[in-house]
């Protein structure tokens, strides 16, 4: 036992010392932090919002959003699909576990409820602003969806786990919303392609702005607000992530005795 612990500690110490030495002294990852930009980063920063280079630009002041939904859009589509399938798999694991409202009040006190009623609209406004401003300030669909999911979490804790269902936000509706978000992202990714096919021109999937060989694209701004496909992606991702997190919170709020009863039967 002692020998085993000694070996574990030695291996961990060797890992820490060797990795630290190779990274900080031998500089195997290059100079850290680098003084100048890498060529790829230079390209992204130089083209993310340059109206005079319209065949290269994503027309978004926020370079990270431009990379996520324009330069590496397919990556993000598959990423959101992975999240979707993880939620579907979790629902499948918890299938058959449902709780009926036993009657009576199960929420927290009036003070907490009043404070929550004040805070939840603020939460929703902040989340919506993060989603809509995703193309111009740090933020975007995922961050906004995560922020928005705090509202149902508070509702579940403060007003009880039946409250969302009573207000019409059932698990099935949320699954439909999650699916609609993913479908919306998928449709937005082929929007330029569909426009191209309809107009008889060329276009690509995940095309945001016109390209030299495919001069079809979404309007770069709406009333002076940077848009393109990025705004559509952010809005659908916002809905999808919000619905996904809410499903998770609803499933996690099922009491243990109810779940055990469903799994093992009443006895």
């Amino acid at each position, binding site marked *: 036992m002692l020998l085993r612990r000694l070996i574990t500690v030695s291996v961990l110490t060797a890992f820490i010392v060797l990795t630290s030495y190779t990274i900080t002294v031998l500089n195997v990852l290059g100079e850290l932090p680098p003084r100048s930009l890498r060529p790829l980063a230079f390209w992204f920063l*130089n083209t993310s919002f340059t109206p005079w280079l319209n065949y290269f630009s994503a027309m978004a002041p926020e370079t990270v959003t431009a990379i996520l939904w324009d330069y590496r859009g397919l990556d993000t589509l598959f990423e959101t699909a992975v999240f979707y399938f993880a939620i579907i798999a979790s629902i499948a694991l*918890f299938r058959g576990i449902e709780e009926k409202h036993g009657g009576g009040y199960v929420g927290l006190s009036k003070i907490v409820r009043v404070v929550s009623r004040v805070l939840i609209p603020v939460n929703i406004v902040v989340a919506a602003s993060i989603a809509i401003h995703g193309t111009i300030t740090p933020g975007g669909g995922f961050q906004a969806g995560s922020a928005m999911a705090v509202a149902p979490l508070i509702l579940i804790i403060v007003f009880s786990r039946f409250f969302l269902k009573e207000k019409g936000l059932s698990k099935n509706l949320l699954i439909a919303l999650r699916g609609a978000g993913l479908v919306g992202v998928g449709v937005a990714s082929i929007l330029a392609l569909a426009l191209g096919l309809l107009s008889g021109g060329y276009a690509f999937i995940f095309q945001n702005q016109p390209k030299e060989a495919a001069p079809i694209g979404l309007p770069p701004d709406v009333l002076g607000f940077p848009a393109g496909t990025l705004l559509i992606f952010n809005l659908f991702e916002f809905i999808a992530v919000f619905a996904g997190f809410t499903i998770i919170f609803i499933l996690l709020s099922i009491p243990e005795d109810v779940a055990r009863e469903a799994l093992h039967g009443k006895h």
Partner: protein
Amino acid sequence: MASINLYMFTFSIVVISLIVNLAISLYGVLVKLNIVKKIISLTILGDSANTFAILVGYRATYPVSPPVQVNVPPSPSDVLHLTELSVDPLPQALVLTAIVIGLAINVFLIFLAIQTYRLYGTLNMREIAGIKGGQHE
């Protein structure tokens, strides 16, 4: 010069502490028997790797700015100014993707762990291995 050395020294301490974090989380994932502890270690491992990626994308200049163009619409000099000051945006975008995928994996693992506990009454890997058909041997 002294300030640069102090800067590099501080940066090295951050890098080393992240490597220590990685080592501790690897220890948790590989050695700990409790599934919840493994999941916690896995989240620490993912977060340490993500922080490290962000750190690699940082830049040793002063002042340093986020990769966001603040002048809309920009002029060519604004874009040049951004490239002179901004950090690397690519690690931030990759980390955002990694966070979402990590979250998806963690969600599924947590649900698996909960269901395992409900079925076997334990989260210890050795004890689960000794249970066959829901009964202890």
